């Protein structure tokens, strides 16, 4: 599931839309009558120092373009025909903007400003997801992920209590981390309870199912995906973004190991899940998946620190009911 924002969180985009898309009216900010963002503007890579002080209109346009692109990426799975090529091109555009903004320092300013704001994490997640793909491009010294997301993650490490007894409970605690499943690497989750291979499979299943409201077979395990296990932690980001475009196939025969794992799951989980998340009923979701969806299907994909803590208490309470006796 994309953790990007809904349009409501980009109000400035709507106001600026008439700047970006004059729809036939004369554009004011460039001499040749052409939109500087659209054509022939090199941005801060130009040599002179004067060029480094960007005109505010260029910054605004660039920001609008970034916002629009993120929205497009978010909504692309709602298209009639999801288009991988289009999404790759949009993602490349976002990356390009991000690189330029990183070069002129605007990126850090924006992320810091957002960190101070009310619901920062969604946009941060959006940029985080895309930043992870630019790790190769980001030079040493640049930190494309200076987000409070990682702070949150560290903050919650203390919550990850290795408990005796139920594997379920252990999983509970780490799953309650506000960091989305996509951001926490499989190896991180495998650590506390050492069931790495199983966890990867389950998480894959769960993620695939929770990611899409509509039924989907993104987790049809392609041969090559299985071979890339060592890249699992990072490659899943790319798969999250682009994996939704695979054409649906008939579901593969269910993995007997998974069947076994889920066989003792109480069916009452599903009802609780439906009630809490408002999702369509998903075929099979274990308790791990339920918790993941609880943490990531809320009104905002990642809540701020304070609201997460209250969520934790609620989830604690719910877990008591589920795990129960």
């Amino acid at each position, binding site marked *: 599931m994309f953790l990007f924002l809904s349009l409501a969180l980009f109000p400035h985009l709507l106001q600026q839309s008439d700047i*970006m*898309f004059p*729809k*036939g009216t004369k554009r004011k900010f460039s001499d040749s*009558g*052409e*939109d500087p*963002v*659209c*054509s*022939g*503007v*090199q941005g801060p890579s130009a040599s002179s120092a004067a060029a480094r002080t960007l005109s505010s209109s260029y910054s605004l346009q*660039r920001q609008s*373009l970034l916002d*629009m692109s993120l929205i*497009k990426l978010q909504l692309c799975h709602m298209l009639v*025909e999801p*288009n*991988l*090529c*289009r999404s*790759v*091109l949009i*993602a*490349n*555009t976002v*990356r*390009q*903007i991000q690189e330029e903004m990183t070069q002129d320092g605007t990126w850090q300013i924006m992320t810091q400003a957002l960190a101070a704001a009310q619901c920062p994490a969604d946009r941060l997640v959006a940029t985080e997801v895309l930043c992870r*793909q630019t790790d*190769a491009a980001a030079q040493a010294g640049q930190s494309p992920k200076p987000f409070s997301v990682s702070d949150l993650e560290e903050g919650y490490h203390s919550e990850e209590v290795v408990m005796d007894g139920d594997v379920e409970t252990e999983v509970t605690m780490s799953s309650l981390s506000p960091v989305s499943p996509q951001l926490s690497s499989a190896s991180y989750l495998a650590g506390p309870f050492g069931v790495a291979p199983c966890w990867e499979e389950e998480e894959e299943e769960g993620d695939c199912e929770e990611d899409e409201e509509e039924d989907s077979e993104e987790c*049809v395990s*392609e041969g*090559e*995906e299985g071979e*890339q296990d060592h*890249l699992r932690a*990072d*490659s899943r*980001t*790319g*798969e999250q973004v*682009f*994996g939704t*475009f*695979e*054409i649906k*196939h008939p579901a593969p025969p269910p993995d007997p190991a998974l069947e076994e794992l889920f066989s003792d799951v109480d069916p009452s989980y599903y009802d609780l899940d439906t009630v809490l998340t408002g999702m369509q009923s998903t075929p099979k979701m274990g308790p791990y998946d339920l918790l993941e969806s609880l943490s990531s299907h809320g009104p905002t994909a990642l809540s701020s620190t304070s609201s997460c803590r209250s969520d934790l208490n609620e989830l604690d309470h719910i877990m008591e009911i589920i795990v129960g006796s």
Partner: protein
Amino acid sequence: VPVLRPMDLMVEASPRRVFANAHTYHINSISVNSDHETYLSADDLRINLWHLEITDRSFSILLPANMEELTEVITAAEFHPDQCNTFVYSSSKGTIRLCDMRASALCDQHTKMFEEPEDPNNRSFFSEIISSISDVKFSHSGRYMMTRDYLSVKIWDLNMETRPVETYQLLTVLFYQVHEYLRSKLCSLYENDCIFDKFECCWNGNDRDYRQDVTFEASRENSKPRSVLKPRKISTGGKRKKDEISVDSLDFNKKILHTAWHPLDNIIAVATTNNLYIFQDKLN
């Protein structure tokens, strides 16, 4: 009592063979080989080689890359008209790769790569998107290739990889001349997704003088059958001459995405969403 009612002959298409389950992304190209025994099919990330008679098995001659580093997809592919081991595929980054299947089973090492260096003066955030190649076609002789990106058509010489032999930098369409005005419209076209439209190109039957004979897709529809189409100029702004069409009146939702040229005669087929048009030289 059942009554026999004569009806017009109905033609119904039914598949003769179905080659299934080899693609997980949208298929963008099919190309029959010159050996008339095999063909290739390409989707965004993979190219498969098939035998025409065998429907349940294919060989992947190009495999998906690591999804994490996915920045480029396959947009079109075609076999060489004469050399049955050579094919070409284009990418969303504006590159064309020529591959020889004899070199290795997996053709991720290309024999030649064709790419035009980016013009730094024209760089924008949309540069990559408009450089994405939507169609690639060999000339009938096999000596040249034609590629279509968003704003231009380029003719490449297979012996020269560094730049195209010819570039038609205009968005020239079948019956309209449109100039570089579209560059300034790119923001709008990005917003309404028209920038992702994929246009085709095709060669004339004898491709001898390709300058005149190359056909371009049309981006405007025409209404009446058998009406004579006149080329009309698009004015970019300022004064508009009498017969010209103004830039802003163009409706980008009306577009023609598929075209084919008769291999022998000057007859062109043009397809819109629901309609097929056939155009031919005006008979004197």
